[in-house]
């Protein structure tokens, strides 16, 4: 228990050098925000107060509808991305995991395959 308490205090001590850093960051942010207010010249016209002073002027409402397909494809991407994440460690240890590990991975892929088939059948993969 003593050991643990010691570790804790040393962990706090390790972070003390961060304190000046934190102060410098806060000071810099405060300076960058206040100096332009005090020193800068203020011009106000229509171009200056547009959303993007030096870009393409925004057109139309931001609340546009867009196809739910983007969302579905993103979900499918995440699913198969995570499948890959799971399969890499399995593939590296395949000899140690043996037949049981193989069957488990096959079941895992089969369940995902069923889901993919379902999504396919429902037209998630057709892009109109």
């Amino acid at each position, binding site marked *: 228990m003593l050991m643990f308490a010691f570790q804790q205090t040393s962990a706090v001590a390790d972070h003390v050098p961060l304190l000046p850093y934190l102060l410098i960051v806060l000071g810099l942010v405060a300076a960058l925000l206040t100096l332009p207010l005090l020193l800068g010249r203020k011009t106000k016209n229509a171009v200056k107060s547009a959303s993007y002073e030096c870009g393409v002027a925004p057109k139309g409402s931001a609340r546009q509808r867009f196809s739910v397909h983007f969302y579905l494809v993103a979900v499918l991407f995440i699913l198969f991305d995570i499948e890959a994440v799971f399969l890499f460690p399995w593939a590296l240890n395949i000899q140690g995991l043996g037949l049981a590990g193989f069957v488990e991975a096959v079941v895992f892929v089969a369940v995902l395959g069923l889901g993919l088939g*379902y999504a396919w059948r429902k037209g998630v993969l057709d892009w109109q």
Partner: protein
Amino acid sequence: MFQDIALAGPILLPALAALLLLGVELLAGGRRSQGSFLLCALGALVALIYTGYFLANGRTGLAFNGTLNVDNTALLIALIVHFSALLAVLLSRSYLAARRDADAPEYYSLVMAAASGMAMLAAANDLVNVFLGVELMSIPLYVLAAIRRKSARSVEAGLKYLLLGAFASAFLLFGMGLLYGASGSTLLSALPAEIARLETNGGLAAFGVVMFLIGVFFKVAAVPFHMWTPDVYEGSPTPVTAFMATATKAAAFGLLLRFTPVIATGMGPEAGSSMLAVIAVLTMFVGNLGALRQQNLKRLLAYSSIAHAGYMLVGVAAIVAEDGGEIALTGSSAIVFYLGTYAAMNLGAFGVAVVLDRGEGREGVNELKGLCSERPLLAAVMAVFTLALAGVPPTAGFLGKLYVFSCAVQARMYALAVVAVLASVVGLFYYLRLILLMYFTPREEGAEPRLLRTDSFLAVASFVCAVLVLWLGVLPAWFVDFVEATVRG
């Protein structure tokens, strides 16, 4: 390996049914059929029988390196979950027949997937499995709440449930992270000892426990995390509401019971039980007072379910106060008994709500007016469920309350027991109002006669519920002994 899979049967069987249902839908390709209803009911029935078989033969144990603890409490909770799933599926048939817009092909598959997650939550002995169970339970329920895509109320219910549920999951995860930090273990059964050993981190563990509990309180709809309940219960399809109200509560309380030693060591028995007692009192009063003014039957039952969560939390507070010993066993069996009887009476009441609804969204309390003269049997069955929810003696609802409240007395929390009894007296008002409407209020002059159709599956489901509620109320000894004996293991 095979031993593990057999022990995980109550979790795997509904999952298998869910996959089969998806596969059937894949092959049938959009044609509506009775097939998926029958397959789903069969899946729930097989899971129920399997769980019952394991329970009767005492086949329990740890599975998958101790990450699942399939003990008797877990099996009892799984039994309640599968019972709820089966009855909710039986109610679904007539509801979906009347409301084509809810009849999505995924409906039954999602019910089974949620049941699998709930059974997992009851048996989870590892923080990772707890999270897996919570998500496997919640995500299908979010979709089921919003399954009537053309109905603004249903979509609102789904969205509210999703956003607040995801928020609650974040709290749960944060709590798990802190608990892991405080103990260095993710095994629920190892947490108390590890937290006690590394007691320099006491504050961290207490904070983790509170965060974890916030996530669980959201799932059981305890005040102040109950805001979503009335809207979600009202907007969801009625059988889904019934399933949510009964099975989700059972699963989440199963987790809570397994978590009580961690609360007692993480926060200390006094602090933990006082916090739970305050939450329980708030939940009982907000639920019962909120229900008084409701004109919508589903909203009324939603507030009633909040109040019932409060009654059960009284038992959890008592268990935490004593931290182990005799009360852990009597308290657990009292709560499991309460969950079982609550499932029967609530599913029955929602079944009557499905009949009254007639696919036209007639959810007002006034639909009950004069039911006695038109459909005496339906009115009688509803009266049984209402009295049971109120906790009136010849029904199982009374005994459930009695056991839970007597746990508080055992733990010498007399004030809490008195307040709980007072809260259930408040509850009497709105339950009796329903009976008053059915038996003593005639319908308006010139109201067209009602064509209430009772699907035979729904009739069987309601009948089973009514018989269970009365049987467990009049002759509870066998069930109480069974629950006590199995919880003791």
